[in-house]
């Protein structure tokens, strides 16, 4: 039973990793990468390493994902110091709306 679950979780991790590579939407890709860590922490728990599982769940799936999302928001909203009119233009970009949903 535990073996079966391990294999299942391993396959889930593979699916998440491949999805993180191939998803076009960056936010979805970041979330997929975070899900790999989440499943990995379950695997650690099944293998009897609760200490590592806690670290993996907290850092791998929570904090790293948040840091990635923050950086992605920063990249999207990069301030353009020299050209003021353009930055106003970019505020009404459809790209930005996606970021607001964060």
């Amino acid at each position, binding site marked *: 039973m535990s073996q079966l679950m391990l294999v299942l979780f391993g396959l889930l991790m593979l699916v998440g990793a491949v999805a993180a590579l191939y998803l076009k939407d960056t936010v979805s890709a970041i979330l997929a990468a975070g899900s790999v860590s989440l499943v990995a922490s379950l695997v650690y728990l099944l293998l009897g390493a609760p200490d590592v599982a806690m*670290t993996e769940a907290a850092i791998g799936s929570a904090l790293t994902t948040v*840091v990635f999302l923050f950086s992605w928001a920063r990249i999207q*909203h990069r301030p353009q110091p020299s050209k003021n009119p353009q930055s106003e233009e970019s505020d009404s970009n459809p790209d930005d709306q996606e970021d607001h949903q964060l």
Partner: protein
Amino acid sequence: MMKRLIIILALAAIALGFFPLAMRISGDSGLTALATHYVEAGADELGAANLVTSVVVSYRGLDTLGEVMVLFTATTGVTALLGAGKSKSHKKEKESERDGDGRREGSELLATGAAFLFPILVLFGIYIFLNGHLTPGGGFQGGVVLASAFLLLLFSDCRLELNHALLKGAEAISGAAYVAVGLLGLWLAGGFLDPRFLPAGEFGQLFSAGAIPIIYILIGIKVGSELTGIVDAMRRCS
């Protein structure tokens, strides 16, 4: 096409190279001599109910000090790169705030949930690193839970300003105290980071295992303040 073929060949070569390694993995081949010593003598030597903790904090304490150092370096780098222009951009954001552009407030649900969860998360983080020598978890895990509590707070209120002097002070003092405790072990007990200069106490109680709880409290505060600092430097109101 050619490029793809080369990539596949390279991957196959790597897989072939590591194939013996994968074949040699066997699940239950027994403990090595060092691990056997840890398992048999660890509880008697250090008095920590969680054996993982006695390995992480004491037997391999220098590794943990190195990990804390790595995290410190990463935090320094992030704040040096992103935190420098922070005060200026904050002023700008505040000005644009008055103009009333499309700033998104945290929703009611998030604000209420964060206010409700924040004290519980802080308490849970402190519990994790305080009980690191008894139950799974420890300084790193507890510190990350602490940082996630502050992260939730930052999510719910975008304009929230953390007390940077307090964060920096907590981080610096706990880091220095960690090394000081290590030095105390060097002078009063067997070696650097040896926690046995305090009495071992009763096995399985909160006040036991020598200086291990003290070290984990310090690591927890340090990791928590560092990760909070990273998240705070990286966030931007959008």
